[in-house]
């Protein structure tokens, strides 16, 4: 049986197909019409069952005939599949960030998620990259090369941007500002992780895990080793594709 996991995120859509193992994975931009994008994506795939997760799950699942699971469950199952000894997942996606604690058996034991704003999420980094006139893919390296750092006090995207603008106006070098921004996010994630607690293997997933500076700072702050999957963005889609295998 071929199953599909569809993770309709706020910034990207992720697709994973599964038969006896994970087969194809794909990451694409969500755009302004996620339903049409998903329909296009699925028209080329033969599958028996589908599970939809992510921000757009309630929009897409009824239209395409899939079941719905929350991102929390999808990430739990996906991370466990990739790393059977994983008990903690840190996920920083486009507009939310979460920390999930699993039992030894792989059930969700506890989780925390940001409430409402984009503070400390991928979107935050995107906007800051724009302000610093670098590509999002280069933001982490810019920060890693910094010789000094500055303190960024605000994590609200709007306030932080004006803070960055005033730092730029003061003549501060962009590397130092980038490092300050990463430190602010890492500290927020670390606080959330400490509230939930971390155990055993800690998997760092979501688009922000591609950022080498964030990876290093979160690991330093938490004093744990982080495992970043080869494709950190598709963990939720993989989990959904596995859940689809067992859905009746």
């Amino acid at each position, binding site marked *: 049986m071929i199953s599909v996991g569809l993770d309709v995120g706020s910034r990207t859509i992720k697709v994973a197909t599964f038969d006896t193992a994970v087969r194809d994975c794909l990451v694409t931009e969500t755009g302004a019409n996620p339903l049409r994008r998903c329909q296009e994506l699925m028209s080329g795939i033969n599958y028996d069952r589908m599970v939809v997760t992510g*921000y757009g799950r*309630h929009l897409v699942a009824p239209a395409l005939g899939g079941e*719905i*699971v*929350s*991102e*929390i*469950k999808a990430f739990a199952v996906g991370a466990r599949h990739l790393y059977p000894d994983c008990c903690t997942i840190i996920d920083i996606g486009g507009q*939310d960030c979460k920390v999930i604690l699993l039992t030894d058996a792989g*059930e*969700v*034991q506890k*989780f925390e*998620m*940001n*409430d*409402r704003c984009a503070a400390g999420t991928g979107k935050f980094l995107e906007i800051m990259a724009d302000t610093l006139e670098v590509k999002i893919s280069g933001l982490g390296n810019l920060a890693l090369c910094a010789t000094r750092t500055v303190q960024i006090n605000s994590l609200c995207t709007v306030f932080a941007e004006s803070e960055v603008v005033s730092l730029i106006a003061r003549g501060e070098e962009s590397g130092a500002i980038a490092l300050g921004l990463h430190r602010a996010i890492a500290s927020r994630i670390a606080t959330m992780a400490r509230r939930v607690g971390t155990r055993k293997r800690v998997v760092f997933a979501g688009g922000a895990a591609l950022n080498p500076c964030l990876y290093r700072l979160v690991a330093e702050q938490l004093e744990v080793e982080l495992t970043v999957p080869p494709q950190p963005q598709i963990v939720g889609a993989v989990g959904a594709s596995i859940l689809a295998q067992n859905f009746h």
Partner: protein
Amino acid sequence: MANENVRMWTELNIDLKSHDMLMNALGPIFQEVYLSQKNRPAGMGFYDFVVGDIHGIRVKELREHAKTGGKVVATYCVFVPEELVWAAGAIPVGLCAGTQFSVPIAEEVLPRNTCALIKSSFGFKLGRVCPYVQASHLIVGETTCDGKKKMFEMLGQLQPVYVMEVPNKKTERSRELWHGEVLAFKDVIEQLTGTKITAKKLGQAIDLVNKRRLALQRLYNLCKVRPVPISGKDALLATQVSFYDDAQRDTQMLNALCDELDKRVAAGQGVAPKNAPRILVSGSPMAIPNWKLHHLVESTGAVVVCEESCTGTRFFSDLVKPAGDNLDEQLKAIADRYMNIHCACFTPNDERPDDVVRLAKEYQADGVIHYNLQFCHTYANEAVKMAKRLEKEGIPLLRIETDYSDEDAGQLRTRIEAFLEMIKH
């Protein structure tokens, strides 16, 4: 009837244009949240009718009462002893404070970083969109939070306001202070109404309010059953309406509803499948028409079976002990009863986590959702203690901080879905 209402609202100096917008917004929301529910008890018809004419028929009753010299006393909080109001022949009404609609109006004056309940209630007065506020002769506030205290000062510039001092501790001295506040409130009400509160009248009022509390207890007790015979949303609505309906009629309606639910229980008939996750909601009050959390929870396949809040158990779980026909003892019994509300305004307030643990067991709850309004520091901070206690007891907990707006509905839905998945296994 519509024209008659418009005439009444005009007389009450309502901002008709704004009020129309509010009413037009409420209809579709009520349709989506309430009327679309399946398998509702017929007894909810009364409450649907009340909401359908929410600013009409009851306001008209209050106006009739006022025409013969009667007074209307508006409140925002379960600490205000309504028995004294009834005993003086006045009518107490709990005011609405549960909609985003009046929040932007309030933000023209109040700081944005203020809880939605405070902003909503102030906005109703400032924007002249609530006929209950307009029809009341006195608004009685209380000192359960700092934001409210200061808001009442500003409200007092627009309409007569009297503030009762609720103590912050539960010591003997605090009890004395509160007892004194109850006595002072009696004087205020007597002065307002020109009626002397006698032991006979107060005894009748105690009985009147106790009977409504018993009816609400009966309703809640029926929710302990699996499958639960009524949705949490409907139980909430019945409770919310109790804040402003006539106590005697409300008691009758509640008991009629419970008679029907008794039959459902006997027939094993529920509103949700037997295995639907059972949720206990605990925290800040759900002032009408705030149905946001209940709707999210119940449209995700779970059912709210109990609410530990001021629109739930804290409103009715204790009765005033009948004290015969001795006025002093009656007043003491009233003071004792109200002082025993386990509100987060007290420090310490360890009885509240005890209540939640006990209620979770009694109502066979699969999990607790702790709900607090953003900027409600007392409940937000008490949630830390609550979390520790529930973890110790092995009761799953989801903590939610939100307001009346819909901007976080997506994130809330994700968290609630994940929580239900977590407690289902």
